[in-house]
């Protein structure tokens, strides 16, 4: 009889095997649920914002985006001043932060001795850990007055013939907000750039140096060229951060619903306007217009991030092909 010779497996092994399977299944399940939840959440948030913004979208249509108006008394709204403020502050921040970030990353990977580089890298990254509200407070109390008393008068002396450096220096305005944003995005872009530069194959650098190029020529010709798409992606990620920042900008931009010609004058950004006004919105028109601003901001930020990711993917593919 075969049945008498059959040995059932020991109960522990069976349990153990099943336990492993249970763990696998559980892990797989959690991973799927988490991934799905993130996707669904993004969709739900976008849908809810559009739904709440609907009254304003219906009232004002797409022309809302290029209309310069914000009057809660007459319920007349438009986003232009805030789109302008967001774009100008973020672009100034970008233009200032990109060379600085690349320089920091070059210093840390190519120039500084390792013993010096590690603590400095940590410090730069810690800059990103300062809560934006704290940075904004510093902007109000310390940085803004400094900009008003020293930086802006100096800019006016040197470049006063340009319209953006005309007017009266002020502690709250486009320029102070842009500078605070610069401080906020430098850690992000410089950390990514550093990562990129480390990953540049040493052989390429060595080869370039062996062929007689100077260190700067090797950096310019090999390192920067090799990392260029990555730098572009890093810059876009920094830009996404700058677009979306609400509180620190709110504290330093001056909150005026106008399109200032001078960078010293107060203006406003999308994020800052939403943060300041949503909680106190008194009418459906006002609340839905603020959510329309939120929808615009969301589209801008998502687009920037998607472009950055596309560049990263292409970069990775090109690198793997090498």
């Amino acid at each position, binding site marked *: 009889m075969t049945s008498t010779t059959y040995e059932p497996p020991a109960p522990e092994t069976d349990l153990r095997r099943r336990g492993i399977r249970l*763990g696998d299944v559980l892990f797989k399940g959690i991973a799927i649920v988490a991934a799905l939840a993130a996707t669904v959440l993004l969709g739900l948030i976008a849908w809810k914002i559009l739904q709440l913004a609907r009254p304003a979208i219906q009232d004002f249509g797409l022309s809302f985006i290029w209309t310069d108006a914000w009057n809660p*008394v*007459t319920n007349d709204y438009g986003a232009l001043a805030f789109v302008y403020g967001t774009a100008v502050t973020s672009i100034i921040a970008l233009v200032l932060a990109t060379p600085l970030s690349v320089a920091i990353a070059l210093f840390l990977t190519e120039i500084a001795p390792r013993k010096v580089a590690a603590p400095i890298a940590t410090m730069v990254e810690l800059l990103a850990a300062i809560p934006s509200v704290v940075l904004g407070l510093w902007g*109000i*109390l310390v940085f803004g007055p400094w900009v008003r008393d020293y930086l802006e008068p100096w800019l006016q002396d040197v470049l006063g013939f340009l319209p953006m450096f005309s007017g009266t220096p002020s502690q709250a305005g486009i320029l102070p907000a842009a500078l605070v944003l610069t401080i906020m995005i430098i850690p992000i872009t410089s950390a990514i750039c550093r990562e990129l530069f480390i990953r540049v194959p040493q052989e390429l650098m060595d080869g370039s140096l062996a062929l007689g190029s100077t260190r700067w020529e090797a950096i310019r010709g090999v390192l920067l060229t090799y990392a260029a798409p990555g730098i572009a992606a890093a810059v876009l990620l920094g830009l996404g951060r700058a677009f979306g920042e609400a509180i620190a900008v709110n504290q330093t931009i001056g*909150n*005026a619903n106008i399109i200032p010609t001078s960078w010293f004058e107060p203006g406003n950004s999308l994020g800052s306007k939403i943060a300041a006004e949503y909680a*106190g919105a008194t009418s459906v028109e006002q609340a839905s217009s603020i959510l329309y601003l939120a929808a615009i901001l969301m589209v801008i930020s998502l687009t920037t991030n998607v472009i950055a990711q596309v560049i990263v993917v292409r970069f990775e593919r090109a690198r793997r092909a090498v």
Partner: protein
Amino acid sequence: MKRVLALGVLVVAAVATAAFAAQTQTASARPSAGSLVGTGATFPFPLISKWIPAVDEALGIRITYTPTGSGTGIAQITARTVDFGGSDAPLSPDQLTACKGCVVIPWALAGLSMPYNIPGLNGRLRLDGTTLANIYLGTITNWNSPFIKRLNPNLNLPDLRITPVYRSDGSGSTYAFTGYLSEISPQWKSKVGQNTTVNFPTGTGARGSSGVAGVVKSTAGAITYVDAAYSITNKFQFALLKNRAGGFATPGVRGVTRALCDLPARVTSLSQLKIVDPPRKCGRLAYPLSTFTYVIVPTSSGDKAADLRRFVYWAVTQGQKFGPPLFFVPLPKQVQGFAYREIKKIQS
């Protein structure tokens, strides 16, 4: 090992789920009778903070109040997520309809002060409503303007740009201030108007009383509006405002009380509670810029009705005596009378 880990994860997950379920259950149940939850205006918060322990002691009702801003107060009471809402602005007809049976009861009164930062000024600045409107419209831009000099013949007003500072968040202070300017200046009324947020044609915005005060503190030439208590407790220099009798008044308890002289003997509607720019007969001490702040309660409040009636009644009677040290002015008799009649409408 892995099995132990998996089991551990399961147990933790189960416990967490159970705890979460239990918590949502208690959270979803309305707080038990004897406790009331409110949110809204920040303006009356110092006074409400004093009321909370006193109400607990006197009536055994536990009050929770979160100062979030008048707009939030209105939105949350309309959605019935709280038992009462606080607002410095009375509900507009549209908002009143949306709130589906709400009563709006005045429960505190205080003056707004105009703090300024003019370094080296040899005395107290005096302003009037027209000048203030022109400063905030951007037509008066320097402290040595003849319009300001005329009001302050003895002051060494400097050649300094004026920076008008306003609240960037929706605020009852802005509602009261723009109401005052609309009352005085037809130009302000047509160009800007009155609301909790308006489109200020010039100046710098900052968040909250502390935000505007911070900008004024660090900016030479700045002026702003905050509740009198804030200016006094933070030792800000604030302007004297000219009233119709020609006097220059301060936003103290006496100045605001005098401004009430024109209230009707029997108040029957909120529109009669206009106290900005009081008439000449109120005298030279009457301060022209003050505001009531309101509590909004649904007329059908279920099992909360009795507690709400007791709490609001206590607030407009006993509660008023906590006001003066905080520069809140006790409600006058006529307004208390109006409040009693409104409180009676709160039913289960």
